[in-house]
């Protein structure tokens, strides 16, 4: 198979988010979800379900704009959020509403709390530095569910194991683009080597700020954040919490030393109290 990633004039199309990005097994890959161009078509949700054979999650009417999916779950690995914001912007004068649409996904965190707390080793980091559950290992202990600061991973009812986005591990191994990015008609979901995506995002946010879109912000692009940067990061048009995302997520395991130290001190305290109260009064 020939991969065409150059235009007829020789320009690198992958930098524009077109064509199959080139990546190799030593490279960290991820998603850059640019919500400013999302049209809310949900092609990503459908493509993900189809490719990964994710079961139905019910026919619900949530009365949340055009969103009847609700949130990411064991059976929803891409979720398109719809926010209708009242606005006085003359461009939206007719509807009086500004639309925010965003396709959410597992962040494939650099410091992935889910992976760190997993007691069976079911969750692991792949050669592409993505975070994946091995379904033949997971015993459904549920620890990862409580550890994820984004509420991504969850237990599947009736199955008992946990499920989430694999960043299409099988497709990656075949040198392909993940199903959602492949299906996205607007390049709102861009896939590629993370370094490249970060550069592209930096250019995009600068362009938006130049256009006067002051609220536009990158979310998860900074390796210095509480989870060491996301493997799947976003460009948002409002505060993260508006989209149901935590504004300053921190991997819980960053405090592990504090916790183990406190527990060790308390354990010795317990031993000391027991010794003092039980052995303290030796009488014949």
């Amino acid at each position, binding site marked *: 198979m020939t991969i065409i990633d150059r235009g007829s004039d020789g320009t690198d199309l992958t930098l524009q988010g077109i064509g199959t990005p080139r990546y190799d097994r030593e490279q960290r890959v991820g998603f850059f979800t640019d919500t400013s161009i999302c049209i809310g078509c949900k092609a990503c949700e459908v493509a993900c379900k189809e490719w990964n054979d994710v079961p139905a999650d019910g026919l619900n009417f949530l009365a949340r704009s055009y969103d009847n999916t609700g949130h990411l779950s064991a059976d929803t690995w891409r979720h398109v959020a719809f926010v209708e914001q009242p606005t006085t912007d003359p461009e939206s004068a007719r509807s009086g509403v500004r639309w925010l649409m965003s396709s959410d996904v597992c962040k494939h965190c650099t410091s992935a709390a889910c992976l760190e707390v997993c007691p069976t080793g079911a969750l692991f980091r792949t050669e592409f530095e993505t975070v994946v559950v091995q379904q033949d290992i997971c015993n459904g202990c549920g620890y990862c569910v409580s550890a994820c600061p984004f509420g991504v991973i969850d*237990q599947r009812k009736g199955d008992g194991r946990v499920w989430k986005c694999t960043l299409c591990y099988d497709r990656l191994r075949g040198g392909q683009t993940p199903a959602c990015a492949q299906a996205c008609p607007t390049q709102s979901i861009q896939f590629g080597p993370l370094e490249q995506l970060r550069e592209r995002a930096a250019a995009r946010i600068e362009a938006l700020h130049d256009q006067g879109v002051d609220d536009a912000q990158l979310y998860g692009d900074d390796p210095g954040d509480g989870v060491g940067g996301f493997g799947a990061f976003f460009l948002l048009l409002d505060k993260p919490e508006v989209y149901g995302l935590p504004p300053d997520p921190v991997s819980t395991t960053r405090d592990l030393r504090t916790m183990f130290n*406190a527990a060790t001190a308390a354990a010795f305290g317990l031993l000391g109290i027991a010794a003092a109260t039980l052995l303290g009064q030796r009488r014949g």
Partner: protein
Amino acid sequence: MVPDATPMSYYGQPILKPPTWKWPIAAYLFTGGLAAGTSLVGAAARLHGDRRLAGAASAATMSAIGVSAGFLIEDLGRRSRFHHMLRVVKITSPMSVGTWIFSIFSSLAGASAVAEIGEKVGVPARVARPVTAVGQVGSALVGPALATYTAVLLADTAVPAWHEARRDLPWVFAGSATASGGAMGILLSTLAPLDPSDGFASGPRRMAVVGAALEVGADEAMHRRLRAVATGDTDKPDIGAAYTSGSPRVLAGAARAASVTGAATVALAGRRDRPRTRLLAAAGALLVLAGAALERFAIFHAGKASTTDPVYTVGPQRLRLVPPARRP
């Protein structure tokens, strides 16, 4: 018309997934602590030379740890895969570390119990007794780790009411396990009365009282710390609010009341194990046990409650990014 999305979250939806853990995990927090505390009473009795109490404590420890194993497996999504926990030793996973602590504790306690039974059915005492003693004392040395790792298990999550309590939870659990062990010691010596002239009888009573005091004190410190983590919300101004509404409020209040009255009753019964005060002490011990169990359930449910309201997740994070002084 579509309702406005509140600035706090997406249609008021939770950010986090609630823990998948159900009541068996809360119950295990109690029974695991009870096993740990009781193992200490047993080891002390063994060292003291009180073989009757030591044997009773060993049986009680084994029952508590057996029930604990049942609770832990019951809560798994795939029970037949419980042994996958033993595939790895993973220092970043408190559940993995805890699995190994649990395994070592139960092996030592089990070896001790088996040797004791062995002696009854004819194994020579010179073989059986050292195993009984070493197993029992060994398990008691691991016991404190068994009692406190569960605090790290809860704290090492994104659950606000658990993670923010990370410095105090181990002390609450240590106090709770100490109180439970002392209370179990009182009950066991009520069933098999000790020689009143033996000073050892006062041990479990003191242990129960000091343990309950630590439990209540550390619990109070934990609530204070949680109240210091502001959310910026008017209804639920801080994470401590997870404890002051709904079922956690009832459970926490009942836990406090039971622990305090229980400990007071035990103290009132006096230090000596006399027939006159024996029932009073036993009643106090039952209250102390109830207090310890209720405390675990209160913490468990407060944690769950703190995941279902996005205010506890978004509020402190937003304040962290934009401290109140800098807000417009």
